[in-house]
């Protein structure tokens, strides 16, 4: 746990953890509202958004790409609602129609444009590059107090920390209306809570978390963290506050354990190369879900 750990693993570990928690928080409410697959849809549609942003600006800077991704997420939500209402297509199918078509359009745009000069491809979009987010300037734990070295931290870390802050503030600040609107929409409305607005705010928050995390760690972690930790937590308790804390714990555990297993696991088995950290984090969260589904105290009710 010396200098090597700080340089190679500290930043990815923190980024992975922040991303996991930022997705798990709104995931709890989405789960209870049976909108879990929004995370799935958003993570598919950000691809065309990112590609279009790249084609418009001509280089792969972060902010235009995040804006493009957010724009695409918004467009997809509008399109899904439109064909659901106007075409009277069932919600799941409407979602399936839009996110596959937008993803296909993204792949096509990517193939048609010359993106060989930048790091932009489908695989990157799917499983990110967590392992490459290293902190080269660090020389040991002491670097945490060294402003010069701190400035060279991967920008994803700051962004992810900010995102986590925003998501936490939303959850904390709107706790009561969120809770009421989630469990009893009719009652919430009689109390004068703007249910529609809360619902929209939740989707927007989820989209912010998804887009930021997508940029840093790829879509597979986003989908897994939206669903697995909250679903696992749901089978541990009947109280919402406790469920949120459990889900945070599961998210952190998945991120840390997954990253460590991906980086060091193969070495223990005599391999020489690390495996995909994003994939391993999703796998660990799934294993925890499986265990709790088998023995959790509230797995049935």
């Amino acid at each position: 746990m010396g200098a090597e750990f700080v340089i190679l693993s500290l930043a990815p570990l923190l980024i992975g953890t922040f991303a996991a928690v930022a997705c798990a928080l709104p995931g709890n409410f989405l789960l209870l509202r049976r909108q879990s697959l929004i995370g799935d849809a958003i993570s598919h549609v950000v691809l065309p958004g990112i590609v279009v942003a790249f084609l418009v600006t001509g280089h792969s800077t972060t902010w235009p790409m995040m804006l493009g991704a957010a724009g695409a997420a918004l467009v997809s939500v509008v399109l899904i609602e439109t064909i659901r209402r106007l075409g009277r297509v069932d919600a799941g199918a409407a979602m399936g129609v839009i996110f596959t078509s937008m993803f296909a359009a993204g792949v096509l745009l990517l193939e048609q444009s010359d993106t060989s000069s930048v790091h932009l491809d489908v695989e990157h979009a799917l499983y990110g590059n967590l392992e490459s987010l290293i902190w080269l300037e660090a020389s040991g734990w002491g670097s945490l107090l060294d402003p010069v070295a701190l400035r060279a931290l991967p920008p994803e870390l700051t962004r992810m920390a900010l995102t986590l802050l925003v998501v936490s503030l939303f959850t904390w600040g709107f706790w009561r209306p969120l809770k009421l609107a989630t469990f009893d929409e009719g009652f919430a409305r009689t109390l004068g809570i703007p249910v529609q607005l809360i619902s929209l705010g939740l989707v927007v928050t989820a989209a912010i978390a998804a887009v930021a995390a997508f940029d840093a760690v790829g879509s597979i972690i986003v989908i897994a963290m939206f669903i697995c930790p909250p679903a696992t937590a749901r089978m541990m308790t009947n109280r919402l506050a406790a469920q949120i804390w459990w889900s945070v714990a599961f998210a952190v555990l998945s991120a840390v354990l997954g990253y460590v297993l991906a980086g060091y696991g193969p070495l223990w088995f005599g391999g020489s190369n690390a495996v995909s950290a994003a994939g391993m984090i999703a796998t660990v969260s799934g294993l925890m879900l499986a265990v709790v589904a088998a023995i959790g105290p509230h797995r049935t009710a």
Partner: protein
Amino acid sequence: MLAQALLLQLGYNATLVALGSAALGLAAGATGTFLFLRKRALVADAVSHATLPGLALAFMLMVALGGDGRSLAGLMAGSALSAWLGLLSVSWLTRHTRLAEDAAIGAVLSVFFGFGIVLLTVVQTLSAGRQAGLESFLLGSTAGMLFSDALLIASGGLAVLACALALRRPLLLVAFDSGYAETQGINVHRMDLAIMTLVMAITVVGLKVVGLILIVALLIIPAATARFWSNRADRVVLLAGLFGGLSGYIGAAISATAPGLPTGPIIVLVSFAFFVASLLLAPGRGLLSAALRHRAYQRQVHLRQGLLALAQSHPVYEARTRRILRRAGLMRADGVPTSSGHSHAAAALRDENRWQALRSSAHLSELSARDDGLTLILDVLTPDQIAELDNRISAQPKVVS
């Protein structure tokens, strides 16, 4: 160039791909309809993503046994096995825990896919220096498709189609009314499993052409498209097969015309184009026909109100009503009714008066529910009933003026 591609004249490989894709699209469209009507479209997404670990494991197993690991049949078998496991997991989680189906779908999808990615990175390190090419199954890749591959895809697709058609009656019954199906002695759970097994088979067959991320589109989009064109389930199945087959064929043809046009995404986009066209243009459920219907209805209301106003010598102020009356040759520009306007207005007033008389009639008043302000009483009553109403009207003091 496109015409050539559509006529299968762009070479051997393009022809194979086009025919294989058409068969796949046909089977996927028809099979997906049952899933769509059962409103479980997104379970297919979980199933298709769950193929990835099996794909990688099958590759590793075949390499360990001394092969080169690229036999399509072997890879298909492996992916079918893990898709089956994923399907069982969704079904188990929904039945035995408190989690809703969408959460189970999302969990299985992400975890199986994540584990598959882990295995893919293992494969990459195992076959260092040798391209395994398993990534091509994420989005499909038709370059270098072999005759045996195309044959496997086409025959697999058609076999699934045959099974789906053989099971269509119980499947449709379950899709529309699972409670009733149960009373008819159909095992609903088993039928759901059957639909999903067929879906899984389509996924596995489609891996090579459209890849595991987009195959779900071929199951959902043609069915949703076909639904705009018919209210009869058997026709929806047929039409979905047609739209799916056309998308596969046209998509493969377009992708053969130029480089940088990946087959899978193009097929999906072609089927989406069919969807949008149907959403707009389909008779009955399409947006255009709904808009036209709405306009025709509005016109009828304006016409009727305008005629009643003319009959009672009230001035017509509403601009649209005036326009409609003038276009129909019932009113002059200065607001005076024409001779045909007079007779139509009188007819409208007579109709209105008869409806009013009907409401106070003892034995006909229950028909007043048919009075929506537009239906002609001549279409509701027999001539002798109308004569009876007319007698009542002339016996009373006049209703109007």
